[in-house]
């Protein structure tokens, strides 16, 4: 016997939650407990009085499981609202990365040239290293990191995806 897997689609969810202790564990734990997949998860408070947090989750699931993920999230007591930004259509997704590169000579010049192409900013420099700050969609950042590998990549820190719907309405 072999174990079968279902076809998955990638979706970005915005989850507004009450900013109470343990809420992140509750949401993340729901995913592990029910066998759902998390590709990326970011969280921070977004309201003036710090009472509400926004969690952006990127998950990949079959349409059937995705429907379950949303209704299971909505069932959690401290959850205000869950929005499937991917299903909603037009939305913006961004990620920020800090990329440390070390090297001398041609590698150093090439790193700066590539950073310029990717509109990455230099936020720290020594005579033998740079730290670049780059924002954009995940694919752009993947590509930038891949290029940096060839010119002396030391380490990468990424925020994971944050996303918001286009237009004037809240999602």
């Amino acid at each position: 016997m072999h174990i079968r897997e279902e076809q998955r689609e990638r979706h970005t969810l915005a989850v507004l939650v009450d900013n109470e202790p343990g809420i992140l564990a509750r949401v993340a734990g729901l995913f592990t407990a029910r066998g759902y997949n998390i590709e990326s998860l970011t969280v921070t408070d977004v309201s003036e009085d710090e009472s509400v947090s926004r969690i952006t989750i990127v998950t990949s699931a079959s349409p059937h499981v995705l429907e379950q993920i949303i209704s299971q999230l909505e069932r959690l007591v401290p959850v205000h609202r869950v929005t499937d930004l991917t299903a909603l259509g037009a939305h913006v997704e961004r990620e920020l990365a800090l990329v440390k590169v070390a090297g001398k000579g041609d590698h150093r010049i090439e790193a700066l040239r590539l950073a310029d192409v990717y509109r990455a900013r230099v936020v720290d420099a020594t005579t033998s290293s740079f730290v670049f700050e780059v924002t954009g969609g995940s694919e752009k950042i993947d590509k930038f990191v891949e290029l940096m590998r060839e010119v002396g990549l030391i380490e990468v820190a990424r925020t994971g995806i944050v996303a918001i719907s286009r237009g004037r309405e809240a999602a």
Partner: protein
Amino acid sequence: MSEKSGADILVEALVDLGVEVVFGYPGGAVLPIYDALFQQNRDPGRGRPIRHILVRHEQAATHAAEGYARSTGKPGVVLVTSGPGATNAVTGITDALMDSIPMVVITGQVPTALIGTDAFQEADTIGITRHCTKHNYLVKDPAKLGDVIHEAFHIATSGRPGPVVIDIPKDVQVATARYAKPGPIQHKTYRPALKADRAAVEAAVEMLAAAERPVLYTGGGVINAGPGASQLLRELARVTGAPVTSTLMGLGALPASSPQWLGMLGMHGTYEANMAMNRADLIVSVGARFDDRVTGRLDAFSPGSRKIHIDIDRSSVNKNVRVDLAVIGDAGHVLEDMLKLWKGRQTPKPDLSEWWRRIDGWRAAKCLDFADSATEIMPQRAIRALYEATKHRAPIVSTEVGQHQMWAAQHFGFEAPNKWLTSGGLGTMGYGLPAAIGAQLGNPGALCIDIAGEASIQMNIQELATATQYRLPVKVFILNNEYMGMVRQWQELTYSSRYAESYSDALPDFVKLAEAYGWKGIRIETPGELDDGIAAMLAHDGPVLVDCMVAKLANCFPMIPSGAAHTEMILQANEVSGTMDDEARALV
């Protein structure tokens, strides 16, 4: 207003919430609460006393609270200490989550300054119970305790009911704050909808009126919606003429004596219920969740029907089975709205005579018949004898988990809701005795019987002492076949009768054991002793344990083997091959 200790706030809030009984076990981290309870019950100036029932193991406290809740409709309340007290309660908390039982569990915790230091009897109760509760709280400020307790009861009892844990560090029990009884709770985010969308209810009525082969498939949600919901279900069944089947958890919502009752459906359901589900053109699920025990093989589940799912929990919809119409609301409210619409339309009762002719054909298979024996007691015979001897008293029946549970569900007739207490979702052996104790406390005059197996009963056998202490006339009726019978049955069906570890060896003498705990013990060994033994059990006004020796190798049929469709039921033992392929073996 003067300040009170956290422990006093807790007790006063419980009184304000109308709590009459608490099931618990003391320990270091709840000593302040036990002292507050002690004083509450000694000092008439402090208001109504709260009865504390001392169990012998914290797991039993949770099952007793479940039995109390299921039989009374009121939330069950549990009080246990930190660390092992809390971890022992986890099985019952999970059981209550799976079966949607309203329960509030108060756990002691080490003082806030010691949390995270691996202190004596410290466990991360909030972390451990996060996914087996509907919600949980760690209260670090006594000023918030009162509101949290009221909110916890609101969450446990409203919407889809479930267990809520409140973890209270010992210093919060001692520190003081003000307490005022809050008004009606308006939660920021938790707002379960009772009333369903009108358009959805209208669509449901249209579909029901147009159906030629409808089946009402009901579950525990009807019981949870209160006795009124069961009345409304009976009325809907009457006006539509539709056949009714139910899950294990929903037994009693429709009287078993109703001509429209098909019996339970699913793995050990009746042939007529499962065939009707398979051939129906419309299934109306009311407060049931298309559990795997019910559906059998999903791609063969009721292939020709449209499906309506009435449920208070949106996440139950389309979880296992895709449905055509979701009606989100409380079962009672939705049934009431459907009936109003149905009657308002003056819909004539649909002509279902052809459908009933087919159902009668399946009924003729008499799937619950069994080969009786003159020399040994067939377990089905024992259940029927118990039912015949007690039905005039409308007993509350609890069970453990296994063959005896399924035989009880098949052969004991339930005429009313809240009379059937069983662990359905989690399938917890050891549930039945404490549940019967809880039911007896909530229903002092009722006949409460735990139908047990000799293996399950040993999982919480220590609770015999609890019944003795509180003079509860609980009856335990053990179907003793000297096997973990359901395990043995699966081994017979799937593993060519290789009985790995399923023999109940070194059994105690249950009669002597009962007597040691201050119970009356009765042994029934032959068919001739059955009726007299049951009569002797009923004649004794204290607790009685009956050790009923039944046929050792009887199997529970009908049965849909795992991975099979409703139409592939095994009705008789001679249809069993004894082996299964790996796909089927991998299913539970």
